């Protein structure tokens, strides 16, 4: 199988549909990490 690299204009927009998923995924991952660290700090303080 070959990737249709030619005619970029026909398929580049598919990547733009992926962008919100990646952005929100990264945001949620960062937020989870921050909350996990905060919970760890709270446990250490106790």
């Amino acid at each position, binding site marked *: *199988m*070959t990737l*249709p690299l030619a005619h970029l204009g026909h398929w*580049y927009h*598919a990547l733009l549909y992926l962008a919100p998923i990646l952005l929100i995924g990264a945001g949620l991952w960062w*937020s989870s990490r921050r909350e996990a660290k905060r919970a760890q700090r709270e446990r250490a303080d106790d």
Partner: protein
Amino acid sequence: MNRIRTPALLAALLALALPAQASAHGIGQRADLPIPLWLFAWAAAFVLVASFVALTVLWPKPVLANLRERTLGRAPLALEALAGALGVFGFAVIVYAGLAGSQTATANLAPTAIFVLIWVGVPFLSVVFGDVFAVVSPWRALGRGVGWAASRVSGGLPAPIPYPDWLGRWPAALVILCFAWIELVWSGRESPSSLAIAALLYAALMLLGMSCFGTEKWCRNADGFGVAFSLFALLAPLDWNGRRCSLRAPLVGALKMPNVAGSVAVVCVLIGSTSFDGFSQGTVWTGASGLAQQLSDLFSSLGIGAGGAVELAYTVGLLLIIALISGLYRLALVGMNRTGAGKPSVDELARGFAHTLIPIAFAYVVAHYFSLLLFQGQAVVFLISDPLGDGSNIFGTSTAAIDYSLLSANAIWYAQVAALVIGHVAALVLAHDRALVTWSSPRVAVRSQYWMLLVMVAFTCLGLWFLSAAAS
């Protein structure tokens, strides 16, 4: 503030600098949309995130399970019997038209009745009036009729075989998969006589199953159409318990989704098959060097005939998209399970959150098929007068035509986007409420739903990409 404004400005400039989507192969393009199609996906994702934040702030306790229904009244027994008789009569007409009528798909009532009126029309009726298919189902009506007659003549039928719990709704999932294969893959799908024979075989299977396991048990678990339509009916404001009718708040009905084996598979097959219908119309699949062509070439090189290779390629595509949908749902469950420190288990979560997929399944049906129902549904007006396509004019409407100016392509696109966004927001609401019941700590409940939010955004963007691809 500058930290937000600068990236936003850069993103806007980048969006404007991107070239327009190439559409050299397109026909029937939408015109004058104010923004590119992909920006709708970004906007939809933003709406979902905003809804998630609003739920976190404004919905701190479980609410849906505490909402009560209000009884409206009872339907007369005669109405139920009449609806059943009507269902049997309608089924007989469709099968007769398919077997005896013209074999041109557009001139025969059978294909339009099966693929448009029943498969697409009944879900729309179900989300308004409740489980209408249960009362018009021809096989259920026949099964109940036989049971009633037997009770009058010989004191009743022998006790049915107990239906195995492990089997649950897996037969229904298989039936929906087979129907989707017929609709989207099978080369004989446009042959009215082939469809009629398939309908007769299915009816025979249903009657056999009902005679072994009992009418209600079999219809609730193995009749793919009955199961699918009953799931959509859970979204209806009207709840039918036997002949008693109650009014309920939006989304409350989804909590009543039976917790049986195969329930998740049913919804995933529904969403996946609808998604594949959209995907298989896009250039990524159908293009000159698209996936369908490449897969067909691969199967042809293995010695399979041209027709068989195409059907096999489409079968693989259908199964892969269903697997993708199931995989995304599984990803959300695994994420939730990890957030909740392993409790409940992934399988328990799968059953506990399965009802959240119902509004998504209906949103996909609306997004992909409502224009089909709107336009091809009009064909019923002339087909009902000439069901065999032999030039008859029973009701005087055989000269009616389809009015394609009812709705513009842009209006259809807006309706599709709205359906997908509303469906996924409804799913988020159901998941948030269930999370608050599942985890005692609201903080854990909210964090568990990060995964659900991500998967909902993925479903929405995927759905919009498939829809946009289908039009390009």
